[in-house]
């Protein structure tokens, strides 16, 4: 089932378009990778999909029927997650708890269920032991993992990750891909991830969309004609989380 679709979208920040007649479908319950060289507007495409940017022309539509007619819960990990304000006065657990704000509302109390979700999310990204640390004391990769935990704690229908492995070591990167695979397989979450590390991530993805420049020097892009399925995909394999 199609969850979200971009149809013939054109968008730019100045006078020239950086996204030129792009069409893209996101299917429910898939792990989609968006890749491409620097400057091919991968983040822009992601923001268009999220509705953060309005296209000059074309349409971006969300299929609400895919969520039973309601509004989907979207977990988002931005590209600059690891470079956020280092002086922000929060402990890891406090920041991850903020992911539950939409669940508990303005005055609701944090119950046992929310605390369980927070613990579970932090454990999934291997940050439970560092939950009392100030976020400014963490490394870039650790900050990234905290942001991923904050997205997971919302129990999202869709997870949007913009280069989430920035600053992570190889083991952490592999664990993240496995975690996302687990979210797709066991929780039915749709994951869309912008990545440069296709060699590593490719085997965990269901589908890859590569964005390319059409002409050198011209900021026009389009997804390559054939959306590819990774050659050695783990998508169909059965495996459990560590």
């Amino acid at each position, binding site marked *: 089932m199609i969850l979200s679709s971009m149809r013939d979208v054109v968008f730019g920040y100045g006078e020239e378009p950086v996204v030129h007649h792009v069409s893209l479908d996101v299917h429910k319950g898939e792990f989609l990778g968006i890749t491409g060289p620097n400057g091919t507007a991968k983040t822009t495409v992601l923001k268009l999909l999220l509705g*953060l940017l309005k296209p000059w022309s074309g349409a971006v539509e969300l299929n609400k029927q895919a969520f039973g007619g309601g509004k989907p819960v979207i977990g988002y990990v931005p590209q600059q997650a690891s470079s956020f304000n280092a002086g922000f006065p929060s402990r890891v657990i406090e920041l991850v708890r903020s*992911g539950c704000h*939409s669940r508990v509302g303005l005055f609701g109390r944090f119950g046992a269920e929310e605390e369980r979700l927070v613990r579970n999310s932090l454990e999934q990204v291997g940050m439970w032991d560092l939950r009392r640390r100030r976020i400014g004391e963490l490394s870039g990769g650790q900050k990234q993992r905290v942001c991923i935990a904050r997205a997971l704690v919302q129990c999202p229908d869709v997870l949007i990750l913009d280069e989430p492995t920035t600053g992570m070591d190889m083991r952490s990167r592999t664990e993240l891909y496995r975690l996302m695979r687990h979210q797709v397989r066991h929780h039915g979450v749709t994951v869309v991830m912008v990545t440069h590390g296709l060699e590593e991530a490719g085997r965990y993805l269901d589908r890859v969309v590569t964005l390319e420049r059409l002409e050198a020097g011209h900021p026009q892009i389009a997804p390559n004609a054939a959306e590819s399925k990774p050659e050695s995909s783990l998508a169909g394999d059965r495996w459990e989380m560590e």
Partner: protein
Amino acid sequence: MLAYEFMQRAFLAGALIGLVAPVLGVYLMLRRQVLMADTLSHVSLAGVAAGSLLGGNPSIGGFVAAVAAALLIERLRGLYRTYAEVPVAIMMTGGLATAVVLMSFGRTLSQSFSSYLFGSIVAVSTTQLWLIGGAAVLGLIFFIVFRRPLYTLTFDEETAGISGVPVRTLSTAFSVLTGMTVAAAMPVVGVLLVSALLVLPAALALRIAGGFLSAVMTAVGIGLTGIFGGLTVSYVANTPPGGTIALILLLFLLLGMALQKLLLLWKRRVHGGQTSQNPNGKKGMETI
């Protein structure tokens, strides 16, 4: 000291503004909008001048100008997304220039301006006290009710928007509240020192507090102590209250930073001593 009615009013005004200004300061610092307080106070001065020239209440004129400028800055923020300080600089220039030109129209204005420039907390009028009270109550309600979305918004606007926080509405309400608080704080420390009440307590709190709530509470504690201490010293030493309050808050910040540095050095020394000993507790080779 508290037997005098003017001192009672001064302490009441100080307590009210001391409850809300440092909280606002924490958010302004984290949103990288520290200069907004200075800018709004300068624009507020133009409102004071306009209010006087039009025969109205200068304090209310300042209040209206500060709130209007805050809304305009919020609007301009969308046009200069990558240069957050540009709208602030534009408004500061515009506000100060307008104030200077308006002042030239009324010769008597220059004299009353000094009370706005340097503050006159011991001469707070009933209207000013009501404005301060209104801003403080509204501010506290705002920060308590919207503490959760404000936290998310302050950490990252983009993620906040995606997770359902009404970013534009909340941001606009925050700007209006900033304008109100700055205008309300003007009689306490004056236009030139208004940011001291907002920024100095927050600057220290953000260095020493562990979590978000403790940063907010620490900032309020520092702010109130600085205001009450400043008023007391000012009364005893016969110094200008606005400047004295700002100096005491600055002293707190410097002392806090020095103590934090000493504590860090002491911890490193203790830690270094532990690592330079071998597991048997005897002095051994030092780790290079």
